[in-house]
């Protein structure tokens, strides 16, 4: 296996955010002698109530643009901030809202990486004559000899970042061979600590803006209030049912609940149960929220749709591997069986409590990302 290192002088666009990781990525590329161009995308954010305020998507708030520009200047590279609001809205935010309408809990980062970073931005990078697009992600790419009779002489592998705590390969599983052939992740070879040291050595700011679990395009409140404002008709109140099908309360709209949730369930006192109840499922056909006991929660077997395999080819037989059902979930052993129509069945050795329709399942062979898809059904 070979680590992917293009020759000095190669033109590389680096996606800059003003943060430590992408700044260090840019500095490393400059140090290695590449012809580096920094680009920051302006992404859509919910318009704020006050007039005249600039876009404040967290990825590209005005301060972040100023930081990225200053860093580009320090590194002596050209820098552009490019408007991508409408493509981001169209490919990331709107499908995310639609998925909520279908009682799923979607992860918008997949579409962002696929359509915005490695679609829109990659295209801009190529238009500027760049051979590669680099980002500050914690992941790695290497090559192994391709199987006989393949189109390309090598196969690109997407690997976890060296720093297990920071690994971001989960959100990059949407990439394919052509994307990886044109991608560089300079930070993936290092731990976060080391990246911070590098930032100090390069004289780059190391202070990080507060990390937030919220989605980058939310500007006020949480995703629930966002949905109420932006898509009021996706949330329709309906019944809360127990596993026997009895109505035991009312929910305010399925998008406001997620599998495994316990708090905030409006359940009639008379049906007060001895044991706490958890959300087991969101039944969009009946607009019902199904709740049950902790021991009813979780599943071993999932159906996954829209499977994407990094190699470009689905395995021909069931594979024993590990998989994550959420970004922050623990990897667990399973058997993945490719099905027709881009689906797959995944059978875990142990019950997975957090598996939620709409979230991504990503499968690994050791450090290598096999691929992933969207959880369609849990049983």
């Amino acid at each position, binding site marked *: 296996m070979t680590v992917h290192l293009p020759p000095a002088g190669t033109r590389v666009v680096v996606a800059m955010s003003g943060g430590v990781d992408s700044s260090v990525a840019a500095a490393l590329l400059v140090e290695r002698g590449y012809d580096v161009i920094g680009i920051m995308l302006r992404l859509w954010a919910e318009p704020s109530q006050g007039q005249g305020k600039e876009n404040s998507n967290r990825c590209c708030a005005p301060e972040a643009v100023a930081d990225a520009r200053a860093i580009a200047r320090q590194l002596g590279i050209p820098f552009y901030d490019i408007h991508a*609001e409408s493509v981001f809205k169209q490919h990331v935010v709107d499908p995310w809202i639609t998925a909520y309408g279908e009682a799923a809990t979607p992860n918008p980062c997949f579409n962002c990486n696929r359509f915005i970073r490695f679609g829109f931005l990659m*295209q801009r990078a190529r238009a500027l004559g760049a051979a590669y697009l680099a980002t500050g992600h914690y992941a790695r790419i290497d090559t192994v000899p391709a199987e006989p009779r393949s189109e390309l002489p090598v196969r690109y592998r997407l690997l976890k970042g060296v720093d297990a705590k920071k690994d971001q390969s989960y959100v990059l599983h949407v990439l394919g061979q052509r994307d990886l052939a044109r991608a560089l992740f300079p930070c993936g070879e290092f731990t976060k600590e080391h990246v911070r040291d590098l930032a100090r050595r390069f004289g780059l700011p190391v202070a990080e803006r507060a990390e937030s679990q919220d989605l980058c395009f939310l500007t006020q409140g949480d995703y629930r209030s966002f949905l109420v404002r932006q898509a009021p008709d996706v949330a329709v109140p309906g019944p809360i049912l127990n596993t026997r099908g009895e109505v035991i309360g009312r929910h305010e709209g399925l998008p406001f609940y997620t599998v495994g949730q316990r708090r905030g369930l409006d359940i009639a006192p008379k049906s007060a149960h001895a044991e706490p109840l958890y959300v087991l499922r969101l039944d969009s056909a009946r607009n019902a929220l199904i709740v049950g006991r902790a021991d009813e929660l979780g599943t071993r077997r999932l159906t996954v749709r829209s499977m994407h395999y990094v190699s470009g080819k689905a395995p021909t037989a069931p594979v024993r591997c590990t998989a994550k059902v959420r970004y922050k979930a623990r990897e667990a052993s399973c058997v993945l069986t490719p099905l027709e129509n881009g689906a797959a069945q995944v059978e875990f050795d142990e019950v997975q409590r957090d598996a939620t329709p709409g979230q991504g399942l990503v499968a690994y062979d050791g450090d290598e990302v096999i691929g992933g898809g969207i959880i369609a059904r849990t049983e």
Partner: protein
Amino acid sequence: MTKTSARRRVYLDYSATTPVAPEVVQAMQPYLTDLFGNAASLHEFGREAAAALDEAHIVTGCALGARASEIVFTGCGTEADNLALRGAAFAARQHGRGDHIISAPTEHHAVTSTLEQLQQLFGFEVTFLPVDGCGRVDPDDVKRALRRNTILVSIMMANNEIGTLEPIAEIGHMCRERGVIFHTDAVQCPAYLPIDVEALQVDLMALSSHKFYGPKGVGILYIREGTPFVPTLTGGGHERGRRAGTVNVAGAVGTAVALEYVAQQRETQAPRLQRLRDRLIEGVLAAVPDARVSGHPHNRLPHHASFVFKGVDGETLLMALDVEGIAVSTGSACTSGNPEPSPVLLAMGIPSEWALGGLRISLGYHTSDEDLDYVLEKLPRCVAQVRRAMSEL
């Protein structure tokens, strides 16, 4: 750590701004240091500044065929356009003379946005005339649009995006006969064309110093004697009560010197630039497939070449050229990720798959044949590269 390779840089965006001429810098210098007085002050410091300001009015007036008292220094070209349009409109309102204004969709935003505000907030009615495929307003259309309640016509002398010259004298003559105030935005012109307010028959005219080798942040508004005018920058009695605010004396001095400088340079520069421009246009059309000139083929600013390239997003092309060290500009705005065609090109009837790819290459006094050699080497490759990337998935 910093990249230091001496990259070739070619500036071909003189329509956006120009470097300040050394004699202009020199003339301004004392008024930034020793002679710092406020021209409105009574004392000697003030008198020194006032004398310089008087002189700047005289020189500027002379350069434009106007009287010193008809010249108002402003904070920029945009401000001059704003003051002209509001000043004339509000004066007409004050005297109940009508509320109809005629202009064109190809005007600079300094004009169109101001007119839209007069329309939306102040109840004026604005007719935006059609333009032909070269961006030209037909004087007959102006004539037909004139009504009894028309108070103001605003048509630019030369278009910043496509370089086309408008038939100003003809429109001016017609307006004067009808007693309608005529404003022209001549911001793009002084460095390359002679300007005489009498020949042009204008009542109001906006200029901007940084477009003719003067400093940024200084504009000129010409107000013909007797033109009804209500000041919209109100305060003290500066500039004869037409534009309140302590005058930028150094800027006014620099502007006057810059006007003298360009008047002297123009005669040799204009034909030289025209030759370079024509060479550039021929070279680009020969080397780039699916390319056209936008604007008038020859009735245009001598330093100004503008093109449209089918299927190319102008902003991306601009970046690709910048990466090669070539500084130019586009008229198409990309404000949201889906490139929007330029309103000027659309008004000219250019189809939108061409109107995204507007490119303006504006030459200046320092442009050389070698600069154009470099552009003619790089531009065809950049266009091809952008087209290739855009057609990939």
